């Protein structure tokens, strides 16, 4: 059954990619969806099997073959199903199935649907490798595989140079991160002597002091800290954190379901998953964790502010994704691994929902993504609108919607945890306000207010293959939060369990949480403050963009400098171009014109000319002239006779 779980998408990829390359969207989609369904159903079966076991024994191991075995380094192609990877597997296959289903409708008019579905299946396969792999190397294989699929799918419409360039940007940016990830693997191996998660984690849990102090110098120079920082560089690339986040907004060039699956729900959370997976290691490297938290918080705030002024519906969602990923890193950075996983899960649901919703809108608007040409779509697209509303409420953290639980838990942990601080909380808090603002703005500009739709476009509700996933995801967005009710909120409902925390508890390293007397009061106070200001922020956005757009226009004039700065995304792309890419390009051109053409090429040409000339010279010997051959024999005879007589 494990083979069904892992290899069904691969089989789907092979069937679609090799056998039926020219099928129409319906057939190709059916193949891909059934592959995903098989995978999802076996994942569910595994879940119930796992649930039937006692908490400490919840683990299945599968070894396919022994991949690399050199001296004391061994990397078997082995997989682990434990509570943590189970959660991820369910998200990947479940949300993946819904998005495959959605794609059937969305890619209806495309020319190469089979190719699209085969890539999508391949992505799911690689993502499962990443999540299920029981050592870092298998994870790295999946890590690279999803990067490849991401590249292929971003550049799916490669005839548009901008889209192809976006694909390359994503790939190259990820490559920087991957280099860090590899260095992290090497460092971890040199510290722990193994690359299996089990070995690393159990060693880190049992010998925290040895690693933090004895044998190694503590603090920044400690190999463990170094390893964690390297790994975090990998996570930065894959999960789009400052400074490597620039690829994700551009990645929206791909088909919208791809954005939903890869660039919102699953792949970009790989970094978070990796850190949660290695939580015992990160816990003994507090400096690295502090960096993670800071970068996460900064990313959350920065991306949220950029999102406020974007006009492209998918760009807004992209920056929102970056921002929410920042939250997750803030969570893992302050040691709230459970909360980060909870947020990962709820975010997968509501962000996939919103991306698919935006896909539905874009499909209805005939590939129009500019929100300034939308508005008032509420009437034409009721299902899309209402499901989108669920996602909106979830992301801004409206009480009792899923985002509320996970986000407030992260904020509370940022405030309360010994690894957190008030500043981190404050940054996260402000980011939450911006989140509420830009999401409300998106809703207002797209669905509410007056219609700015051009006359020749007639928006219509999407077919059932697109609305069913929306409805399911909306349902999940609303209720998934109840699986991970934080302790504080749980007290309101008669000490409700945090099911997710309990579920992954065996894999988490313990770490001391201070227990003040007034914790509950403070938590509720902060929560109330957040809720109130989020409400205000949403109301302001609603008034500005749905009721009185002219006020927004006036404000744009009034704060022109600030507006320009944020609208142009803080000029980060331009700065990268000036500081890194242009010098590099110039340097490479210099290398090409000076070194390659003038030295290396000339050298090789000379050598080949030499060989050619030598061949040309020797060719004369092999003339076919019989008498010359006889002469050679004679010369040989004379020489050997001479030699014999000399003796």
């Amino acid at each position, binding site marked *: 059954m494990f083979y069904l779980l892992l290899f069904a998408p691969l089989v789907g990829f092979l069937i679609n990619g090799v056998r039926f390359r020219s099928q129409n969207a319906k057939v190709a989609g059916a193949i891909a969806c059934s592959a995903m369904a098989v995978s999802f159903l076996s994942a569910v079966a595994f879940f119930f099997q796992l649930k039937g076991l006692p908490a400490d024994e919840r683990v299945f191991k599968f070894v396919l073959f022994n991949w690399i075995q050199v001296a004391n380094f061994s990397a078997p192609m082995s997989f682990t199903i434990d509570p943590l990877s189970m959660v991820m597997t369910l998200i990947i296959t479940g949300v993946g199935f819904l998005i495959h289903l959605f794609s059937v409708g969305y890619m209806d008019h495309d020319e190469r649907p089979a190719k699209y579905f085969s890539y999508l299946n391949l992505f799911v396969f690689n993502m499962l490798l990443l999540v299920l792999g029981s050592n870092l190397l298998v994870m790295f294989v999946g890590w690279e595989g999803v990067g490849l699929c991401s590249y292929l799918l971003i550049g799916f419409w490669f005839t548009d140079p901008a889209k192809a360039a976006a694909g390359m940007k994503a790939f190259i940016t990820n490559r920087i991160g991957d280099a860090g990830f590899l260095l992290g693997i090497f460092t971890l191996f040199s510290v722990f002597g193994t690359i299996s998660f089990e070995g690393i984690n159990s060693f880190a849990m049992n010998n925290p002091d040895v690693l933090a102090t004895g044998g190694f110098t503590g603090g920044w120079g400690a190999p463990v800290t170094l390893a964690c920082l390297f790994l975090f560089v990998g996570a930065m690339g894959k999960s789009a954190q400052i400074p490597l986040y620039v690829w994700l907004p551009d990645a929206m060039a791909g088909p919208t379901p791809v954005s939903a699956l890869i660039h919102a729900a699953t792949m970009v959370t790989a970094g978070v998953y990796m850190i949660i997976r290695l939580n015992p290691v990160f816990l003994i490297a507090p400096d690295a964790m502090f960096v993670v938290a800071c970068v996460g918080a900064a990313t959350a705030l920065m991306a949220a502010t950029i999102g406020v002024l974007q006009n492209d519906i998918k760009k807004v969602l992209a920056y929102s994704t970056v921002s929410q990923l920042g939250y997750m890193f803030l969570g893992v950075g302050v040691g709230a691994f459970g909360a980060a996983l909870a947020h990962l899960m709820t975010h997968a649901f509501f962000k996939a929902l919103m991306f698919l919703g935006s896909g539905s809108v874009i499909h209805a608007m005939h590939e129009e993504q500019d929100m300034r040409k939308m508005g008032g779509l509420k009437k034409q697209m009721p299902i899309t609108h209402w499901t989108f509303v669920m996602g909106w409420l979830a992301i801004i953290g409206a009480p009792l919607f899923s985002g509320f639980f996970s986000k407030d838990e992260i904020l509370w942990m940022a405030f309360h945890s010994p690894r957190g601080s008030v500043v981190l909380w404050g940054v996260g808090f402000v980011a939450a306000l911006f989140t509420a603002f830009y999401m409300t703005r998106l809703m207002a500009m797209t669905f509410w207010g007056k219609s700015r739709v051009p006359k020749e476009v007639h928006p219509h509700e999407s077919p059932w293959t697109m609305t069913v996933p929306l409805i399911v995801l909306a349902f999940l967005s609303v209720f998934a939060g109840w699986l991970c009710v934080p302790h504080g909120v749980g007290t309101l409902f008669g000490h409700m369990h945090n099911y997710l925390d309990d579920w992954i508890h065996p894999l988490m390293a313990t770490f001391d949480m201070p227990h003040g007397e007034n914790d509950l009061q403070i938590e509720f106070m902060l929560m109330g403050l957040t809720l109130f200001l989020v409400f205000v922020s949403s109301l302001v956005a609603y008034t500005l963009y749905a009721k009185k757009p002219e006020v927004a226009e006036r404000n744009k004039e009034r704060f022109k400098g600030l507006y320009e700065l944020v609208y142009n995304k803080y000029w980060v792309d331009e700065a990268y171009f000036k500081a890194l890419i242009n010098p590099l390009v110039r340097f490479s051109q210099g290398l090409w014109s000076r070194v390659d053409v003038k030295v290396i090429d000339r050298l090789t040409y000379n050598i080949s000319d030499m060989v050619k000339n030598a061949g040309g010279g020797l060719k004369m010997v092999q*003339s076919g002239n*019989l*008498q010359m051959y006889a*002469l050679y024999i*004679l010369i040989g005879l004379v020489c050997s006779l001479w030699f014999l007589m000399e003796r």
Partner: protein
Amino acid sequence: MLSSAMTIGLGHYIFVSGALFVVGLLGVLLRKNIIVILMSIELMLNAVNLAFVTFGYYFDDVNGAVITLFVIAIAAAEAAVGLALVVNLFKNFRELNIRFFEHLKG
């Protein structure tokens, strides 16, 4: 010097043999006509035969003469085959110049 001219020894015969060989060799190397080249080869074979018989005579060994008989038989066969080839070549190309056949293939 005169005495060595008046009594005939091994060296005289070998000298004649070597001279014949070199003349035949130059014929093979220099002449244009394939038929003449074949003749020159016969000449060289004869030179070798002479050397065989000479050594056989001077070192009291009958094998020299026996080998010569074999060489004569094989030389006759070789001449027959060579001439058959020349006939074929001439029929096809109307040409006997050895240089003409430099670029034959297959």
